[in-house]
């Protein structure tokens, strides 16, 4: 039987844009025994703040403890936990794939289907860039494995909550039941 899919939680952490803040955040996860699955950090539109998007694989109750501990850090301004079902997630990947003359056409076709881009071409290899939801990147990676992946680099996820288009109140009542 296959393993159940890991329980991923996405934490979107707004922090002060100061030296050492990433170390504070990541060491707190390490100390509590959490494995960070992916982590992306960059400044926000307000230069005083950065946003760290952390994907962790945990059960929900210890996550509560780690978010509370995280919030105790003076430089952490806000933490939102994003429910993958109600968030827009994007990730980017670049990978080098074997593409000898006999298979090159097939690889290029798949890149087109996935709306990726070929960013570098060698004698028998292609470097491909692909962005999108993490599951799409997983699918593409699976397909490319058949041709032979030379190197692969993913950025880790960034995410924002989905915009509310329906009445929030109705939805939250629905959840209570």
């Amino acid at each position, binding site marked *: 039987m296959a393993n159940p899919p890991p329980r991923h939680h996405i934490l979107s952490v707004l922090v002060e844009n100061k*030296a*050492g803040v990433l*170390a504070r955040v990541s060491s707190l996860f390490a100390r509590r025994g959490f494995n960070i699955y992916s982590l992306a950090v960059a400044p926000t539109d307000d230069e*005083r703040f950065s946003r760290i998007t952390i994907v962790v694989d945990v059960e929900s109750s210890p996550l509560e*403890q780690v978010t*509370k501990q995280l919030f*105790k850090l*003076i*430089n*952490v301004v806000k933490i939102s936990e994003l429910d993958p079902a109600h968030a827009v997630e994007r990730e980017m990947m670049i990978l080098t794939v074997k593409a000898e003359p006999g298979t090159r056409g097939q690889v290029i076709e798949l890149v087109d289907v996935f709306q990726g881009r070929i960013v570098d071409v060698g004698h028998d290899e292609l470097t491909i860039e692909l962005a999108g939801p993490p599951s799409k990147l997983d699918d593409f990676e699976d397909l490319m494995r058949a041709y032979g992946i030379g190197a692969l680099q993913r950025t880790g996820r960034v995410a924002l909550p989905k915009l509310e288009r329906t009445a929030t109140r109705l939805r939250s009542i629905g959840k209570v039941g």
Partner: protein
Amino acid sequence: MKLNGGQALIKSLEMEGVEVVFGLPGGAILPVYDPIIDSPIRHILVRHEQGAGHMAEGYAHATGRPGVAMVTSGPGATNIVTPLADAMMDSIPIVVITGQVPSAAIGTDAFQECDIVGVTRSITKHNELVTSAQDIPRIIQEAFHIATTGRPGPVLVDIPKDLVDPNNPNSAMEWEWPDSIDLPGYKPTTKGHPRMIREAANLIAESRRPVIYAGGGILKARAAQALRELAELTGISVVTTLMARGAFPDSHPLCLGMPGMHGNYTAITSMQQSDLLIALGSRFDDRVTGKVGAFAPGAKIIHVDVDPAELGKVRRPDVPIVGDCKAVIDELIKAVRELGPQPDRAEWDTQLKQWQAQFPLHYEQGWGEGDALKPQFCIEQLRDGSPEDTIVVSGVGQHQMWSSQFWRFNHPYTWINSGGLGTMGFAVPAAIGAKVGMPGRTVWAIDGDGCFQMTAQELVTASAERIPVKVAILNNAYLGMVRQWQELFYEERYSEVYLSPDLPDYKMWAEAMGCVGMRVEHPDEVAPAIEKANSIDDRPVVIDFRVDWTEKVYPMVAAGTSNDAVILGPEMGEGGH
């Protein structure tokens, strides 16, 4: 006004109302020590940086004001790591300033360089490496704000030498004291949620076997009076944890004393059998709960703490309230009053009194020829022979537990010890810090012989600075608590716990450090020695009490077992009650 960074640092400390700094200079902090000469701030020169940290803690414990320590980079900074961890565990507001190598040398493995901000990240409430002299006033102001508000704790400020050295252009700054603090990520909640407070009052009104579980947060919030009002209004009895001894008077009829691993039977058992625990500024520490799954199984929980992360960390509360203990208790009193009279709890109160009568703390001091001096007897004599508001400071181990058990704490801030980290060697320097903060009070350090050897050199500081603390060494020639565990749980295989009663000679050592030294071996010498010690007020005093090395701390709940299995004394063996 143009200042250099060093002057700005000292001026910032003055602006924060600092009256005393405990410290020891060295290369990287050297420029800061020059303006100290011209400052009204008193500097106390310690003999080891760990002493500076614990003195700052003792000062903060006794006065409620933040303690300040200042040390140099590298080894100076690493030597103060233990006090920082200690202050973090016990929520003690201290500000530690460390020198750092010049900015340009950072990261080059320079002489006496250590990444102390990295080292202390998880044992400070906050720490900061200053990168510009201009930032010094703001960072110092923030450090004091963070250390003293919300859940108090230690803050470390690391300052590179070039920013404070007047000969370096990097130290130039324009003095400006910020008139407000802007920390977007730090807004502690102090006021409890009104709905939660009403729910708490309802739970109290429904409960038949409630216990107030008062922790160190009561003292941090200056809430001892509010706690007393709540207890008297509701008639609910109070256990005071190791960190809360004195938060509720031991002489009060509603006081049950200390719970936990070495708590008394009634305090432990009342919690076990209660139907409602009102946890006020306590954190369900393992030394209190024993085996968590078996702790107070029938109790609902009201948990009040200023730190949201404590709520649900160990035990999920039925009513969680984030807020300052004093503010919340004040509101809770109002809510309880609105609900009218409390239910009849006579049956429970009778039960508590019955346990107290049946299972008191006990020991026996023999007076015959060859009867050994009991440590508990020494503590009781010390208690009875000293002023009622004496501040008692202890190290960690058997003497700490006996002190907590046998002293009668009737005033807040009269008991200072290292509860969370369990730092041996805490007593002597912390007592010095307490005496500096409260010079009019008698300060007794009750120490073990093992603990005393770890930080005794600070008595040199006390002598030199005319800080007349008193030290009672309960000298049993062993690392007594470890010995107790080896006796009970390691088949009496005593591994590396023997220290010898007279190596060193504590009396001579005390005298060499400028103190009055005394030795007491027989029960009838105890009271006169204490009387003499209490009459000396111009120098520190050390009494070496040669106590029974076989004496153990009881009651005891063995680590990891249920609080239902209280071992009352040696006659009960390991089986429990």
